[in-house]
């Protein structure tokens, strides 16, 4: 029987206090891991919202604001971009593709985005992933709509269903149409990005809707060759042949003569936006680290409180030949065991909690937190906690060493 087994048996003998200590450590580990997981995945899903787009162009405002409304569909553009600017810039050398975006309408709380079919071709999210269709395909007719995964799921739409788009943003618009102009022709696969919460229609569809045409009317007018080209759009996304040209292109767009425009790098703007939220992120982390510190303080208190009762046990061990080293090892080993079991339980608790809450978290926040063993990013946290547990164990070990020096082999305590 080595010192480890001795420590284990000694802990089993004091299993009531030991298990409480383990429990507090486990709770703090679960919290620490949970916060870390939410933090890293919030950040990841944030960074995943757009990729493969080299520049986002909108009317001159702030880069974060432009990012918020063009990518996250949050807030509104203060002014628009002329269609002519879009067509002009999209023909500039070095521009591989340009996708117009027209926002400002909604359907039962979900934003409606007018765009071109190219959107489904060129838009990328996460790790350069294309948008996939779970049903149907891109819009073809003027009044066709493609729904994001969440829109279809939450509102229960299927292919061929008709839906009303309200002008302005809100659950109920003020000029609801009696006729249901848009028809669902495609439903996108889930992406975990704002795309899931978007109703996509053609730019011409937006125009037609604003003129209050129904399907029949639209077909009739189009047949007569009526132009449904918009005069303004909200923003547009640019893909370039050569990413190195992006800086020059950005400068050229920012100095565009016809109207004041702003071009931003999505990655840079995402980083700026994330930095804005960093305070909250840090606060979360600090709180969970404080909880871990409290758990370790509990471990220390329990170990120190136990020492006095165990002076006799230590004297007996000394009398059968244990050196100071063994006695200190025993105490250190106990702290290590309590911390280790606490960490293991914490990982299990966090996994179980996530298993139970995962559907709700996806539903509520659109965050898919994977259930997994601790990831590479989490091991250092656990390692740090383990080290802290060992360091905490040094205190009773040292105290016990002092006691042993004073007590010698006396067992009459």
């Amino acid at each position: 029987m080595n010192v480890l087994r001795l420590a284990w048996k000694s802990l089993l003998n004091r299993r009531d206090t030991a298990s409480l200590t383990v429990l507090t450590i486990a709770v703090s580990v679960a919290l620490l891991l949970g916060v870390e997981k939410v933090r890293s995945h919030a950040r990841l899903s944030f960074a995943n919202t757009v990729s493969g787009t080299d520049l986002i162009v909108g009317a001159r405002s702030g880069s974060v604001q432009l990012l918020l409304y063009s990518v996250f569909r949050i807030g509104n553009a203060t002014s628009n971009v002329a269609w002519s600017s879009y067509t002009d810039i999209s023909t500039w050398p070095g521009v591989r593709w340009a996708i117009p975006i027209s926002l400002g309408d909604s359907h039962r709380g979900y934003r409606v985005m007018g765009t071109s079919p190219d959107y489904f071709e060129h838009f990328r999210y996460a790790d350069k992933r294309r948008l996939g269709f779970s049903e149907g395909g891109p819009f073809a007719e003027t009044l066709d709509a493609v729904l994001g995964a969440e829109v279809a799921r939450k509102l229960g739409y299927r292919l061929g269903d008709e839906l009303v788009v309200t002008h302005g943003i809100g659950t109920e618009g003020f000029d609801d149409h009696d006729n249901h102009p848009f028809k669902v022709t495609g439903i996108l696969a889930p992406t975990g990005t704002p795309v899931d919460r978007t109703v996509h229609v053609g730019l011409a569809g937006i125009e037609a809707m604003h003129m209050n045409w129904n399907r029949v009317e639209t077909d009739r007018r189009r047949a007569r060759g009526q132009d449904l080209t918009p005069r303004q759009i909200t923003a547009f996304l640019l893909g370039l042949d050569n990413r190195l040209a992006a800086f020059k292109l950005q400068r050229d767009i920012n100095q565009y003569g016809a109207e004041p425009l702003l071009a931003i790098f999505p990655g840079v703007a995402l980083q700026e936006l994330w930095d804005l939220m960093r305070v909250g992120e840090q606060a979360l982390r600090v709180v969970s680290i404080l909880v871990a510190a409290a758990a370790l303080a509990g471990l220390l208190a329990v170990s120190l409180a136990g020492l006095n009762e165990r002076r006799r046990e230590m004297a007996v061990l000394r009398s059968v030949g244990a050196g100071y080293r063994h006695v200190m090892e025993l105490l250190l080993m106990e702290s290590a065991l309590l911390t280790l079991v606490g960490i293991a339980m914490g990982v299990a608790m966090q996994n179980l909690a996530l298993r139970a809450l995962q559907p709700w978290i996806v539903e509520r926040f659109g965050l898919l937190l994977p259930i997994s063993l601790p990831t590479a990013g989490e091991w250092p946290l656990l390692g740090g906690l383990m080290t802290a547990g060992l360091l905490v164990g040094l205190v009773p070990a040292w105290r016990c060493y002092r006691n042993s020096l004073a007590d010698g082999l006396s067992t009459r305590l």
Partner: protein
Amino acid sequence: MPEVTEELIEIEDLRFGWPGAAPLLSCDRFLLRRGEHLYIRGPSGSGKSTLLNLLAGVLTPDSGRLSLMRQDTGSLAAAARDRLRADHIGFIFQQFNLVPYLNLAENVVLPCHFSRRRATRAAEAHGGVTAAARLLLQRLFVEEELDPTAPVSRLSVGQQQRVAAARALVGDPEIVIADEPTSALDFDARARFIELLFEQVQASRATLVFVSHDPTLAACFDRTVDIDDFRAETRP
């Protein structure tokens, strides 16, 4: 027999006092030879546990020399003294000898975890430390059926002392130091314990140092000293 004259503990001009207090122990010459059964008479509070801590190498003399197994404890590091104690001395205390969270056999084999020498000896003599422990327990509990894997918490004080004796003897250490091992026992248990202890000490040819304030036991020993002989203030 040459080994009978072998000196296990040798004291020369030893002086010891706790810091800030008057010198407590003083001894010019003392020898403990192999096979001796020494009785040290002394009431508690007479510096007895200090003397035992010195003999065990837990404390070292302020001046003079105390050799344990021909090694000067004062010149050894604490860890080396711990090893010396683990290898050569078995202890029995007045009470509370046992580790509460280990069972009988585990308590008995405990010294073998800290002393390779005793573990080897137990294994050579009995085929294993646990076998050695069981055998000792059998000998010390001749009249009783005893489960070696039972917890120690249900034992009577007399039974606990016998388990402690088995532990002190396991792996055949040269010296067994018993510090008032019978003072918590009633008369019958005391007689039985002394009888069994002597049997086993003789069987393992160990040297016994028995400290007690009960003068009736002195007759069983071949040598008696008084704790006062070691005390600085009372020494003649």
